[in-house]
């Protein structure tokens, strides 16, 4: 218990430090609204900088006024002298004028910022509509489902927690949720938008910078809300279509005996109740699809890197890593686990 408390307070301290550092770290991060990768995020970043500098100027002025007032205190003689409370029209008028000017300036600044915010909002929500790539994002507790809609239905596919996008092409992201309200927020790409069960909303943007960016659920959705992340990989057109063609294939066949046994373990245990592996009888859509699991860089909604070791930890006791998540702990013998991991890591 004591240990637990110590850990908790350590977390709290770390948390505070992180919060303090975040502002500075974020400036050069893959999860940052001031390093835009789309024209829309660029508009948002500009608005942020305008608001930032205006706020800094206001803060500096107010602080200066405060410091002036502190240092221009009454002298010792003034303090002991009897207070004169008789009306002084001249002084009153001066004070009123000063307050009115300050109020007018405040209102003017707020209206200018309101106007800027409005024009940014308009610029962000309109984009010319030329051959967009349509993707449907579905929020789950606690992972992201991305459905690539293809004109040829058999070529469409579903992937999880990793959104790959071609550079320079317009993206139409249709957002909805399977359970509770989530929010799609990849600050380098666009402002956030809620995923609402039973309703579809759209997010349109055009990534113009290659790179890996991080996104995060931005609407509290339960135990693992904080760990509900995703990655956005913006690639060149060629790389993207290679990946796209590969993703629309079925899963690779097991190449050796161990992988074959691993597939058997997968199909005859609890895995098959929730996951899909294309080309096998496993065809459930409750958990993330695993057809091309090994080609993803992270597992558990961008919480762990996709390594054999992490996969083993996740399969056997995911509740230790993300308490309350939907994956049950699985008791598998050492050989079975080994075979299963061989099979899963072969799913390129």
């Amino acid at each position, binding site marked *: 218990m004591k240990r637990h408390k110590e850990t908790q307070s350590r977390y709290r301290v770390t948390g505070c430090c992180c919060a303090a550092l975040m502002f500075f770290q974020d400036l050069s991060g893959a999860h940052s609204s001031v390093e835009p990768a789309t024209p829309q995020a660029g508009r948002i970043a500009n608005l942020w900088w305008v608001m930032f500098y205006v706020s800094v100027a206001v803060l500096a002025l107010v602080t200066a006024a405060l410091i002036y007032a502190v240092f221009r205190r009454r002298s010792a003689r003034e303090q002991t002298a009897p207070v004169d409370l008789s009306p002084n029209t001249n002084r009153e008028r001066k004070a009123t004028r000063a307050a009115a000017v300050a109020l007018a300036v405040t209102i003017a600044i707020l209206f200018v910022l309101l106007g800027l915010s409005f024009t940014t909002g308009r610029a962000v929500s309109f984009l010319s509509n030329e051959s967009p790539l349509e993707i449907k994002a579905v929020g789950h507790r606690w992972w992201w489902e991305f459905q690539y809609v293809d004109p040829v239905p058999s070529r469409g596919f579903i992937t999880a927690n990793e959104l790959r996008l071609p550079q320079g092409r317009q993206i139409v992201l249709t957002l909805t949720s399977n*359970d509770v309200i989530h929010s799609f927020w990849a600050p380098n790409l666009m402002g956030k938008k809620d995923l609402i*069960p039973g309703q579809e909303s759209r997010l349109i943007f055009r990534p113009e910078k290659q790179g890996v960016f991080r996104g995060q659920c931005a609407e509290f959705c339960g135990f693992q809300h904080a760990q509900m992340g995703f990655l956005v990989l913006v690639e060149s057109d060629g790389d993207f279509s290679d990946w796209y063609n590969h993703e629309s294939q079925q899963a690779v066949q097991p190449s050796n005996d161990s992988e074959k046994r691993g597939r058997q373990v997968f199909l*005859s*245990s*609890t895995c*098959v*109740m*929730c996951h899909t592996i294309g080309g096998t009888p496993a065809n459930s859509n*409750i958990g993330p699809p695993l057809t091309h699991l090994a080609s993803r860089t992270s597992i558990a909604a961008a919480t762990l890197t996709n390594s054999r070791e992490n996969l083993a930890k996740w399969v056997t*006791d995911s*509740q*230790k890593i993300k*308490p*309350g998540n939907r994956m*049950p*702990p*699985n008791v598998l013998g050492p050989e079975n686990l080994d075979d299963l991991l061989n099979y899963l890591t072969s799913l390129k």
Partner: protein
Amino acid sequence: MREGILLFPRPARRSPPALRLRVVGMGALALLIFQAACKREERGFRVQPPSASAAEGSRMTDFQPGPRTPESPVKNEYEDNAYALSEGKRLFQEYNCSGCHFNGGGGIGPALMDDEWLYGDKPENIFETIVEGRPNGMPSFRGKVPDYQVWQLVAYVRSLSGQVGSNAAPGRSDHMQTSSPEQSRPRESPKLSGKPR
């Protein structure tokens, strides 16, 4: 001496000891009451569920040679746990129980919200029914569903006919529901028909 304006004027005199005692007593009582309010249902994510062996050896019928030996009832703790019951409700949809039992109303499979139980109404009977499967359509989920989830399903299945406490049973659905919520179902008194349809 000139009287200055005090921001926090001092009280004229202290309150009498009896009054102070009463205030302290009331405070202590309030604290005690708040303490009682701290008791909260636990959401155990790594707790041991009632073990599968609890269901083993349950009888399918009361009919037996010689005198009837009483059975020790199996207690399913999940029946008093709102989180476990709501998980059961979610799994009932996700594992496609609803595909045949239609939200408990019955269709392809028998109804679960009435008083009729073909294979027993006790938690251990329902556990066995899910794990073993039953003739004429009920599939066996052995090895496919972890024990604790089966117990969550068992608790939920019993809530469909009002067998569990209304303070723990689900009060609403995520989706449209035409029947009354599990929480306010009348408690059916189970009868065994013993005649599989």
